[in-house]
């Protein structure tokens, strides 16, 4: 029963993340939606699959290894994209920008 709940939670997190990517104004706020919702949604779905699959324990643990790798790689990629976009010259729509003040 709990795997259906987790699966539903993961799917709805993914849907809201997509909505956030479509609605937010610039690169950085869109990265918020992409990173957090992809990580949380994919990890939740993988945990649900690990509970639901009828396999031995070591094969279930492989799902958790995948979840661990997603949690490790996703924030690094988003950091690389955000920093690259800033260095490329895309100005963020912000109220305060301390990064521009320190790196003129």
């Amino acid at each position: 029963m709990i795997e259906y709940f987790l699966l539903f939670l993961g799917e709805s997190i993914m849907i809201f993340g997509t909505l956030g990517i479509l609605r937010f104004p610039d690169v950085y706020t869109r990265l918020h939606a992409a990173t957090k919702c992809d990580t949380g949604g994919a990890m939740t779905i993988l945990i649900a699959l690990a509970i639901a699959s009828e396999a031995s324990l070591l094969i279930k643990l492989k799902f958790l290894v995948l979840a661990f790798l997603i949690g490790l790689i996703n924030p690094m990629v988003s950091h690389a994209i955000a920093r690259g976009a800033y260095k490329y010259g895309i100005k963020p729509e912000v109220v305060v920008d301390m990064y521009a003040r320190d790196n003129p």
Partner: protein
Amino acid sequence: MSRVPFYLRERLDEIRQRVLFEAYEAQKLPKWEQIILTWITLFSFWIVISGNTRIENLFIGGITTLVISLLMYEMLTDDIRQSGHIIEKILYISFFAIPQYLFIMAFRLIESNFKVAKHALLMDINPGIVKIKTDLHSDTGITILANSITLTPGTLTLDVNKKLGETYLYVHWISVETLNREIAGEKIKGDIERWLKKIFW
């Protein structure tokens, strides 16, 4: 500090970093403990990924991971600062520190997902880039802290800057609440920095 000439400031920066590094270098783990910690990590990965617990497989995996950990022991455990017996360290890290981190991060991740959903529906965003200070100095510690900040609600790490022996993080915050550096740091970092300071320097 702002009146110091540029060449002197660089020199001071160098000296302070060296003093700090030497102060933490004294509590470094011995070499054989680093090798054992790396070997345990790699061997557990081997068992999970190969998915087969026959005795030949375990034998081959043990020898291979032992050779790898003899060669590359300082990549994984170079920044760990922890005192105590080796068994105490292994038990502390695997049964207390890592579950505590996973427990903190799981709830923060779920909370951040709901927060993104709320922002996407209501569009009540007020973004800004703020600068916070951390007490961590090692590369591994800063990496884990920055990744955790990216996954906690409403924040995304842009860049890291090390200046005069202190580390600063630039964080894109989706709804800026305060510009004060201490309060903002407390709100953004939360428990994670306190957890990281138990293990990394």
